[in-house]
């Protein structure tokens, strides 16, 4: 084989490998975008089990979408039949154990149709994307997509997407070592071809319930200027939102930062240390939290990210002005 033949051969291999990689990326991107669209735009109802921290729960979700927007009901099938109803304007939490219905206005006013797009090219430094084989979940064939974190600062996902409509039939949240942190799996799912009316509440004896309108949250301001800044954030994380608003039940304000790497997110709350705050780490299910005191302020980081991430983010905040 001549040198030019070798060069041509190498070039061909490189080009075909690159084409394959691009095709694979495109496929993953396509599947993830299909999934996001499906979750928001389809009308479906189903039962899923949710396993976290060795606790198994069962819930029912009913979702409908039409020109007016989305509506969703989430009902616990275990224990007390607590329920959440959401639409674009409000979140209604029903607690039969206290015979109360609580209605809260959405914070953003934009409903829960958050614009969410999967930009793989922006995330490639942080996650590996793989299109895996096919599986069967809830009696339906599913395509498996894996999003693996490249470091321990974020969780990964193994998504089993319905081949027909791309709804996530099973979602495994994974640590960097590939261990499942939580698993959510539909045992039964029906997709409706047209929007259906959702009964907003399923409680019996409505007249015996107390209906309470929660006060909407009052942001003091939404600004980019803050005396706080973060040094040494985990790779890829940046502030996506900062707001300052009145603290609960007392004077003073709370600074709220949302940080995201494009997929994972956490919040950091900074309040004057007038009362006890979290010190050290804590966790609930898949949520981790870390708190410390800095310059007389309680700093608390909380989010669905590994413990090492909330700790590093909370420790990296500094008063700069």
């Amino acid at each position, binding site marked *: 084989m001549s040198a030019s033949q070798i060069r041509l051969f190498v070039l061909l291999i490189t080009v075909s490998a690159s084409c394959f990689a691009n095709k694979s990326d495109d496929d993953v991107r396509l599947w993830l975008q299909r999934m996001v669209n499906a*979750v*928001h735009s389809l009308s479906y109802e189903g039962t*899923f089990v949710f396993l976290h921290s060795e*606790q198994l*729960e069962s*819930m029912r979700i009913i979702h409908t979408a039409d020109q007016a927007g989305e509506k969703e009901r*989430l*009902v*616990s099938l*275990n*224990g*007390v039949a*607590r*329920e*959440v109803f*959401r639409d674009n304007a409000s*979140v209604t*939490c029903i*607690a039969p*154990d*206290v015979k*109360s219905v*609580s209605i809260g206005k959405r*914070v*953003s006013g934009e409903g*829960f149709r*958050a614009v*969410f797009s999967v930009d793989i090219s922006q995330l490639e430094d942080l996650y590996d994307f793989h299109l895996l084989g096919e599986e069967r979940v809830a009696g339906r064939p599913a395509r498996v997509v894996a999003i693996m974190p490249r470091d321990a600062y974020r969780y990964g*996902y193994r998504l089993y997407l319905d081949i027909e409509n791309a709804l996530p039939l099973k979602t495994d*949240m994974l640590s960097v070592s590939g261990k499942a942190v939580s698993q*959510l799996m539909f045992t039964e799912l029906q997709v409706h071809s047209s929007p259906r009316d959702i009964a907003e509440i399923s409680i019996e004896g409505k007249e015996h319930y*107390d209906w*309470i309108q*929660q*006060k909407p*949250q009052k942001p003091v301001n939404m600004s980019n200027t803050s005396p706080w800044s973060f040094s040494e954030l985990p790779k890829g994380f940046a502030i996506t*939102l900062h707001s300052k608003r009145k603290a*609960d*039940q*007392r004077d003073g304000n709370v600074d*709220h930062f*949302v940080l*995201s790497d494009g997929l994972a*997110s956490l*919040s950091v*709350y900074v309040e004057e240390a007038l009362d*006890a705050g*979290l010190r050290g*780490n*804590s*966790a*609930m*299910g898949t*949520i981790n*939290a870390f*708190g410390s005191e800095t310059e007389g302020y309680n700093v*608390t980081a*909380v*989010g*669905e990210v590994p413990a090492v991430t909330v700790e590093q983010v909370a420790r990296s905040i500094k008063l700069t002005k």
Partner: protein
Amino acid sequence: MTDDINERISALLDNELSHKELQHTLDSIELDDSLRKQWDRYHLIGDAMRGEAVRLSAESIADRVRSRLEEDDQSLPGDQPIPITRSLNYRGRWGRTAGGAMLAASVAVITVMAFPQLTGTVSDSEQPLVVDNSLPQTQAPYLVQSSTRWKNLSEPKVESKLNRYLIDHNEYVTPGGIGVIPYTSFVSYDSDR
């Protein structure tokens, strides 16, 4: 009038009342049984919203506050003796000082916040006022387990604050994208309880 008192009860919970409004509102609550029940429900809903343990007890929170105040009156050194009957003098006790009224409000809040702590792991001097009549005192340890969902936490106020942060955080993060369906923590049945 009804809306007005509802707003004032809400403001009372948020600690937004002036000295005068506070006394007036506490008086109103004390004199009206339905208002007192409503006040209790506000607390319970707040707990439910934060995903905290909610337990209904035969003794209302307002009653607990009252008995706590009466205990304080007995135990405070140098305090003037005040008849500890629950009828006529009680209203006067509520409004006696702003400090007393504030104590009443804060005791009530602490009482509710303390509900998740049912295992007797109290260390804070404010906490022993919690008496939960709904649980037998002699449960086997393995049945009690940890009644808090947050790990490494023994302070109800901190847990309550963390719950508020988490619910607030849920409102800001991308919902319905990748990950767990939002609000599962509210709907969730906690077998530890």
